[in-house]
């Protein structure tokens, strides 16, 4: 077979056009996922069964099933129900973009909730007691002692999850979205050169991953400035 190096250079700008959508999927899902994660984390560690059990079930379901199936269920499955089509949610669920963001957020939220829980559990019990002994309320202890330390402890696992999320956004191309992977698939269908085109897409993902890694590395450094090396 022949390898057309020139085709990579030629197709990169076009595939590059999908970056906007890929980044929108990434940032929106990461943001919404984080919101969900904080809510479910608080439910999980609340010590109240009627909050922790639903959180546990949510995490179990969305970590335990493939994202592709979650996207399909939301995009192809939900519109079967008439009440969904008549609800306000329909304006979001009708669009493949909305469906993808919902599926990705729910999925990454489940992972992030567990990552954050790991961070919270990693905070020294003695610091809690010191806070309590000073008369700080449970809320203040959580905000001013647990949170900043837990965030620092969670960063490495969290950045890992954001990188996973970046690659998971490629699944949105299965529901017609023209993200980086979606554009690549379209070009492949026209040129029949899967090797070169998908490699170009891979290069773009690699570059984005590098930026994410770098960003988190700086953030981690900032959050760890009080730790003696």
């Amino acid at each position, binding site marked *: 077979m022949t390898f057309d190096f020139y085709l990579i250079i030629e197709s990169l700008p076009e595939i590059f056009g999908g970056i906007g959508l890929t980044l929108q999927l990434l940032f929106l899902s990461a943001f919404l996922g984080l919101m969900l994660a904080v809510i479910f984390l608080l439910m999980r560690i609340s010590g109240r069964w009627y909050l922790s059990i639903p959180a546990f079930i949510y995490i179990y379901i969305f970590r335990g099933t493939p994202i592709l199936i979650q996207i399909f269920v939301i995009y192809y499955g939900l519109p079967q129900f008439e009440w969904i089509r008549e609800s306000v949610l329909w304006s979001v669920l009708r669009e493949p973009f909305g469906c993808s963001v919902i599926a990705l957020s729910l999925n990454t939220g489940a992972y992030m909730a567990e990552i954050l829980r790991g961070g919270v559990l990693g905070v020294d019990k003695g610091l809690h*007691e010191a806070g309590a002994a000073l008369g700080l309320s449970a809320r203040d202890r959580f905000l001013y002692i647990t949170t900043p330390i837990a965030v620092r402890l969670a960063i490495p696992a969290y950045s890992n999850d954001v990188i996973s999320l970046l690659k998971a956004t490629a699944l949105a191309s299965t529901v017609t979205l023209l993200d980086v992977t979606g554009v690549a698939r379209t070009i492949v269908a026209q040129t029949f050169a899967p090797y070169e085109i998908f490699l170009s897409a891979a290069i773009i993902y690699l570059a984005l991953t590098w930026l994410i890694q770098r960003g988190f590395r700086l953030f981690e450094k900032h959050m760890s400035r009080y730790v003696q090396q």
Partner: protein
Amino acid sequence: MNEIKQQPIIMLENVSKFFGEFQALKNVNLTVSKGQKVVVCGPSGSGKSTMIRCINRLEKHDNGRIVVDGIELSKDTRGIDAVRSEVGMVFQQFNLFPHLTVVKNLMLAPRRVRKTSKEGSRELAMQYLERVHIAEQADKWPSQLSGGQQQRVAIARALCMKPQIMLFDEPTSALDPEMINEVLDVMIELANEGMTMICVTHEMGFARSVADLIVFMDNGEIVESNAPDEFFENPRSERTKFFLDQIL
């Protein structure tokens, strides 16, 4: 000595505490008057730490009554924050907040609990850092300080809440020997200023010179409590004698 006896500020009545099957405290009775300095000693696992941790409810007692500054400790959580802000505590492991600078460690509780302004709490913090002779370290991270310095910061942090009572849970046990005295000196200064103190410690020299009352615990019980002279010269029980023989 007689005048301070009139005002009990801490009262433990028949206090018991269980960890599962294990009984950590067995019908403990203790009354501490305002301004009194109590040293609690005894072998490890005897319930010393558990007892003082019950006084600010870091541990919940199972039976009996604990009354601190007129407030009975119970399931009602509203009383507890009030008690905790009156009772300062210093831990064996310092427990400074590692993500806050020294001065911010001191400012956190005054700001959040007492609602003191940022400037006001910084002033307060500097004043207490001065008092434990460590003001020049105000803007460092706790991890940059020695153990003795960290423990002095921890004492200053507790003092910022202007507590009426200070609890010390083996404050020098985690320190290198050469740092013990700088911490004990601060505690002695505090004692001389009239602070009510309960101190769990193995520092018998400190106990002898500072304490009004020495309490000896073993197996969750108060075996003996007496003035230092009596305690060291004429211990009443065999267990106390055995303990003193081992540590002196």
